[in-house]
Each structure stands twice: as C-alpha cells, then as structure tokens.
C-alpha cells in the first residue's frame, strides 16, 4: 500500500511559439509535403504579381476617359463612372436617398434589437420592428401617398440582388418550416404532399422555375389582369428556396433527441407548444450554418434574373460593357462584381460562424 503526495500543476510546454518548429511541423514535415509546399509557393509566385500589377500597381484610379487609361493595367475609372448604375440600376438618381434609407433602417433596427437584450418588452419590440420594416421599405422603394412611384422595372443592380435574396430567404423561411414539419408528419396526406413539393422543386433548376413564374404563371390570369414581373420572380424564388430551407430544417429536426419530444409530451404541452417552444428553437440553432449556406447560394443565383429581364448587379455590368465609350473594359466590370460578391458573401458566412459559436455555449450535448 502506498499513498502519494498531491502534485502542484506545472505550466505546459509551448513549442508552437517557435517559428522554425512551426514551419517544420506544418510546411515541411516530410519530403512529399515539402515538395508540395514548394510547388504551391511557385504557383503563388506566378499568379500574385500578375494580378496585383493589373489590379493595383498598373491600374488607373483617376476619373479619366477610356483612352487615357493605360492598356497594361485595369481602368477603374469605368467602374467609378458606372457605380451608380451597378448599385441602383435604373432607379432615378435624384431619389437614391430612398434605397439608402432602407439600408440605414435595416442596420439601425438590428442595432436597436441588440441594445434591447435585457429589456422587458424585448420580444414585443423586436416583433414590431420585424413587421413594420418590410412595410416601410416597400413604401420607400416603390412609393405611395406622398412619394413618387418608381416602377419595379427600374429597380436593378446590387440593390435588386439584395432585395431579391433577402425577400426570398425571409419569405421562404416560414414555408420551409411548415414543409419540414409536414415531411415529418404522421398524417400521410400532409407528408406525401410535402415530399412531392420538396422533391419536385429540388429536382429542377432555378432557371426553369423562373421561366415558369414569368411565362406560365400569366396563363392562369384572367384577361387584363397583370402581375408585376418582380413579384412573379419573387414568388418563383420563394417557391424554390422554401424547398431547400425545408430540407435544411429537417436535418435540424432529426438531430433533436427523442427524449426532448417525450419530455415535452410528458409535461402535457400540446403539439404546437411542443414544436414552437421546444423543438424548433433547438432545430433552428443547429441549422444556422446550413440556412446561411443556402442563403449564399440564393444570393449567387439571383444573377439568373437576367433571363426574365430583371437586371441584377451582374446584368447591369454586362449591359454597360456595350457602352461605346468604354469598349474593352468588361474584365474590370466582372472583376468588380466578383469582389463585391466575395466581400458580401464572405462577411455573411463569417457572421454565421460567429452566431454558431455564440449559441454553441448552451448546446454541448
């Protein structure tokens, strides 16, 4: 028999701080990996200087004409001149303040909701904001009593891209939740209809649904009845997106252990209370990364709107490349779209990681 003395904790050795050993472990651990590292460095050496020279060092940023721009580097003057078109489409320039306010309101509402974290009426205020925001935004963008009307065919550019993607994801969310629940339902007819809808939509490309919305939908209208083109596109996109959201949320629902359902049942909660109070909050938290993923996909898919004659940011760029004054500058335009898209989408995906981390603290099963 032996009794041991209690030991005091020692500091852990910390080899990662040394640069050399880090390099050795991560870049040159053996012959194959070292060769691959060198190859990768060589590829970077080939690409980066060329791109950097074209984009930055040989590029023209001054507001000059096409001819004054050099042919060696990019001519960003083109982008600056057309920037308003890329952002707002054919929206009348004198009332750019209206879409600008839509954005400012969005940011300030998010900020208000954040400030209210501990407030007594937090949920009520948040819900009010969520309900009034789309109404104010629509009034500002489209117009109405006291505001000049701007028909939707004038909407375009980045503004249209953001509107379509946001409306699409928000409108498809409740439908997606219902479809996901429907697919899990014990009632065969509801389950069957949900499965048919989801699998049909997921089985066809977005472009066919957009065509359907713009060409086939009007066939059902009575003579003289017309529906706004943008509205039709939004309906098509919502139909499309809700099928994907439904599958994402179904994944979340399946990750909820059976014990959660049983505990809710055993308490006497009814079906709706069980779903709304217990199951959905957990399922949605799990689904955040995938919901954001499908939002990103949708954001990129809005470029297909060109097909039915709506001009998102990419089609606006495409349109201006035929401007005689700026012939031969399409590369700059497309690079600009790429950079804008990347900045927006990377920020969103980064924010989703932040959300994930924030909620993971209470979800360690």
């Amino acid at each position, binding site marked *: 028999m032996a009794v041991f003395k209690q030991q005091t904790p020692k500091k852990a050795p910390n080899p990662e701080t040394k640069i050399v050993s880090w390099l050795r472990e991560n870049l040159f651990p053996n012959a194959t990996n070292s060769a691959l590292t060198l190859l990768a460095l060589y590829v970077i050496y080939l690409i980066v200087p060329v791109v950097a020279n074209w984009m930055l060092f040989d590029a023209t940023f001054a507001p000059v004409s096409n001819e004054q721009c050099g042919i060696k580097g990019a001519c960003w003057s083109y982008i600056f001149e057309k920037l308003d078109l890329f952002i707002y489409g054919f929206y009348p320039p004198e009332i750019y303040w209206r879409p600008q306010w839509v954005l400012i309101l969005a940011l300030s509402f998010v900020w208000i909701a954040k400030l209210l974290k501990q407030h007594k009426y937090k949920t009520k205020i948040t819900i009010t904001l969520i309900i009034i925001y789309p109404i104010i935004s629509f009034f500002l963008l489209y117009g109405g009593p006291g505001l000049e009307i701007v028909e939707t065919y004038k909407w375009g550019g980045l503004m249209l891209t953001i509107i379509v993607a946001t409306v699409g994801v928000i409108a498809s969310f409740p439908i997606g939740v219902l479809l996901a629940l429907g697919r899990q339902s014990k009632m065969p007819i509801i389950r069957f209809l949900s499965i048919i809808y989801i699998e049909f939509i997921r089985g066809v490309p977005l472009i066919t649904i957009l065509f359907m919305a713009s060409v086939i939908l009007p066939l059902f209208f009575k003579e003289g009845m017309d529906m706004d083109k943008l509205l039709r596109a939004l309906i098509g996109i919502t139909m499309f997106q809700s099928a994907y959201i439904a599958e994402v949320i179904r994944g979340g629902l399946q990750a909820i*252990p059976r*014990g*959660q359902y*049983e*505990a*809710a*049942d*055993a*308490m*006497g*909660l*009814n079906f709706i*209370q069980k779903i709304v*109070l*217990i199951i959905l*909050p*957990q399922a949605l*938290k799990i689904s955040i990364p995938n919901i954001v993923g499908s939002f990103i996909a949708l954001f990129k898919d809005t470029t297909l709107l060109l097909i039915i004659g709506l001009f998102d940011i990419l089609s606006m760029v495409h349109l201006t490349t035929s401007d005689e004054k700026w012939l031969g500058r399409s590369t700059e335009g497309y690079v600009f779209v790429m950079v804008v898209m990347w900045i927006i989408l990377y920020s969103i995906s980064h924010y989703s990681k932040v959300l994930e981390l924030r909620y993971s*603290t*209470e*979800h*360690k*099963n």
Partner: protein
Amino acid sequence: MNTNIIEINSLNKWYGEFHALKNINLKVKEGEIIVICGPSGSGKSTLIRCINFLEKFQEGSIIVDGITLNDDVNNIRHIRTEVSMVFQHFNLFPHLSIIDNLTLAPIWVHGKSKQESKNKVLRLLDRVGIKDQAKKYPNQLSSGQQQRVAIARALCTSPKVILFDEPTSALDPEMISEVLDVMIGLAKEGVTMLCVTHEMGFAKKVANRVIFMDKGQIIEENKPKDFFNNPESRRLQLFLDQILSR
C-alpha cells in the same frame, strides 16, 4: 390511503410481433411508493411509460384518478397534467435556463402567471438544493444537479403521481446519493411514486411495495422486507443474488 389513483387492468402490449407486456394488473393507492425492478428488457420502463401514454398499448385499460386513458388528445393531456415523469437521461431542454425549464409547464399548460410560477419554482429549486443555479443552462450543471432539476420540473405542476424511469442509471456514481436523498424526501411527503430503479437501498427505505418483472410479466410483488428476505420465485432469488452481490 384508500382510493386507487392508478388501476391497470389486464394490460397487453406488443412491439410488432414481440409481446412486451403480458397481462399486467396493478392497483396503486394514493400516496403509495412502488419500486419496480427486473432485468433489462423486462418491460418495466414500458409499463410506466404506458401510464402517461408515451407508449401506446393494444389491450387492457389504465385508469388514472378515475379517468380511463384513451386515444383522445384532450384525455391524454388531462392525464399528463396529473402525472409527471423523471427520465433516465433527464431530458432537460438545453436551450432554456433552469428557471425557464421549470416554469414552462405551469405557464403553458396550467395557465399560471409568470410571476406566480417563478416564485413557486424558486421554492422548489431551494428544496432540491440548487436555487443559486436558477439562471444557468442545463449543460452547465453536473449530472446529479441536472437530475435534481428534472425532479423539480416534475414537481412544479403539483402532480398526483410521479413516474421515475431509472432516475439514477445515467449518473456518475458519486452523484447517485444526492438524487436519492431528494427522492426519499419526496416519498416522505406523500406523493404517489412509481420508480423503476435498481437502487435496492431506496426500495428498502421507503417503498410500500416492490414489484419484480421479467419477460413482460409481473413475477412477484411484496412488501420490501419480505421481498428481499424471503423471495418466493427462483427467478427473483437469482436476480437478487446478482444485484446484491455487487
């Protein structure tokens, strides 16, 4: 102590072709503490899960507090408001704080006000010894604390019957006694309890009756003293030998 709060009459249940419960008859008086034990797969959990209709059964009847259990949703909900349950794996709601876990049923099922249920819940948490953890989330507590929260949650609607489904089986060994202490405290207050458990010490201390199940049947039923000292069936003798020799 005379009225039967639960009456189970010739209950039969099948999982597909498997006959899980065979002709179970059991009457439980108000305030009785009953311990059900038996080897795994003997149907003891299934039996108590039939009482609050977490499991459907095909034949027989269950009457809880004068109400016959049937398929009707309102009937099931009514019975579930009088019968609560403590699970092996606690089944607390991880997205809600402890206090929200407990006030859920009083607010949404019993229509109590927020403040009223909060006060009651805090008293209950005090009783199970974790009042200072009320604002935390379930996963921040130890397994023993979580199960004590789950017991408080089962109590917060003032049920007539509490079902315990192996409440100590998923606990770390050093946490078992703190949960058993809470259960013993409860038993002395006159709540009707049906406990599926292998904690024989608990059975000896507080049970009015101990039931031994095997292969979906009740094999033997007796007062704890006779149950442990003079087991009649061969099957129970073997079971007790195995479980007590640990």
